[in-house]
């Protein structure tokens, strides 16, 4: 652990609201982020992921509620803001400057900036230092954002869909560099992503945002084991799922797959085997898609907490 990570007390958000005109994006959201963890922030487009990160980092003001970063309000608080790094997906840069000169001034904004790491990442992503940021391709823009985010070594680093336009090789480089540097310098990393199954293994906890509310925050393994699929003949599956919390159903001819929220017991396995139903694990991506479609009455959020 770096000294900063152990001194940090994390981020606490209570009843956070954010509206743009009459559009309410965040509607009374509560969230706690512990220091030194990698969080995956997922949810459909328009769920409020970018707004949430922008509001925490004070890139925009909240309409209501409180945000505390290491116990302090980040609003126009330079001492807190330099501990946070958030490069937007469409980050505006001053085009009078080249990629190289922008990197050159970064230590001014981030006291923990590591120039050797930045140079190493620039080389691995083959970023053209002399070019203006507007002339970068989509993938290069993403790579540039990754360079700044990782080299900032900010105790709270926010990555907004960091892999946009990156080819599979560049994504592998990103995952490898992120884990290697995080291993050496643990810090809080919040990464929004749509590539859930690809990025799931990187995350310690997953946070699912849906229509401005958190519908699930859980350890990735716990989330995966919080639901299962029962697959078999439709009539037999229907009998099996009676009284259970079914969050999604898909049928193929006479066969029905039901995604059920809950843990599989030995009794369930016996019952399933007796009626030719197979019990299958659910991928994180499938679970989140099912949660998104399902109308949520009681959030899983409070479970185990």
């Amino acid at each position, binding site marked *: 652990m770096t000294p900063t990570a152990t001194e940090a007390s994390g981020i606490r958000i209570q009843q956070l609201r954010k509206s743009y005109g009459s559009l309410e994006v965040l509607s009374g959201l509560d969230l706690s982020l512990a220091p030194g963890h*990698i969080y995956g922030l997922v949810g459909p487009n328009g769920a409020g992921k970018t707004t949430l990160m922008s509001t925490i980092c004070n890139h925009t003001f909240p309409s209501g509620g409180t945000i505390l970063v290491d116990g302090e309000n980040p609003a126009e608080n330079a001492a807190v803001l330099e501990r946070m790094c958030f490069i937007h997906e469409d980050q505006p840069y001053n085009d009078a400057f080249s990629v190289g000169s922008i990197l050159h001034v970064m230590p001014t904004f981030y006291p923990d900036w590591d120039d050797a790491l930045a140079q190493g990442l620039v080389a691995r992503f083959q970023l053209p230092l002399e070019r203006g940021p507007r002339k970068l391709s989509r993938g290069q823009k993403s790579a540039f954002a990754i360079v700044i985010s990782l080299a900032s070594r900010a105790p709270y680093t926010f990555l907004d869909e960091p892999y946009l336009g990156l080819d599979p090789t560049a994504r592998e480089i990103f995952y490898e560099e992120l884990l290697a540097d*995080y*291993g050496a310098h643990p810090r809080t990393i919040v990464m929004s992503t749509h590539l859930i199954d690809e990025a799931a*293994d*990187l995350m*310690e906890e997953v946070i699912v945002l849906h229509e401005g509310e958190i519908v699930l925050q859980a350890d990735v*393994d716990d989330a995966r084991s919080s639901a299962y699929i029962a697959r078999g003949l439709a009539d037999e599956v229907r009998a099996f799922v009676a009284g259970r919390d079914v969050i999604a159903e898909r049928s193929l001819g006479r066969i029905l797959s039901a995604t059920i929220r809950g843990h599989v017991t030995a009794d369930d396995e016996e019952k399933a085997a007796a009626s030719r139903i197979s019990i299958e694990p*659910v991928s994180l991506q499938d679970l989140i898609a099912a949660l998104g479609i399902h109308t949520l009455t009681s959030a899983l959020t409070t479970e185990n907490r």
Partner: protein
Amino acid sequence: MAFSDDRPIFLELADAIAADVLAGLYPEESQVPSTTELATHYRINPATAGKALNRLVDAGIVYKKRGLGMFVAAGAPEALRRERRSELHTHYIAPLLTEARRLGLTTADVVGMITKDQA
């Protein structure tokens, strides 16, 4: 190694390291990779890699040398061999007989196939 969705990754990783110990890839008293090395290599969260190593520590397969890292315990390969022998029935023989019954084969049919294989 590619992880499946079937079981938590830390369990799969712990089993994979145990299999390497059993196969002699990590001999007794040799060092096993660190949390960060495992995390970077498999592209997984370091906490997950740590859970896998802790599981192996709890099972007595590896032990921690303070400030140096994790090492394979003396006698670990033999202990793993004993454990895997006792699990041979649950993991291989019982599913084999279940499948055989589904196909209309008796235990004697299966035994016949095994002895024919050995001849």
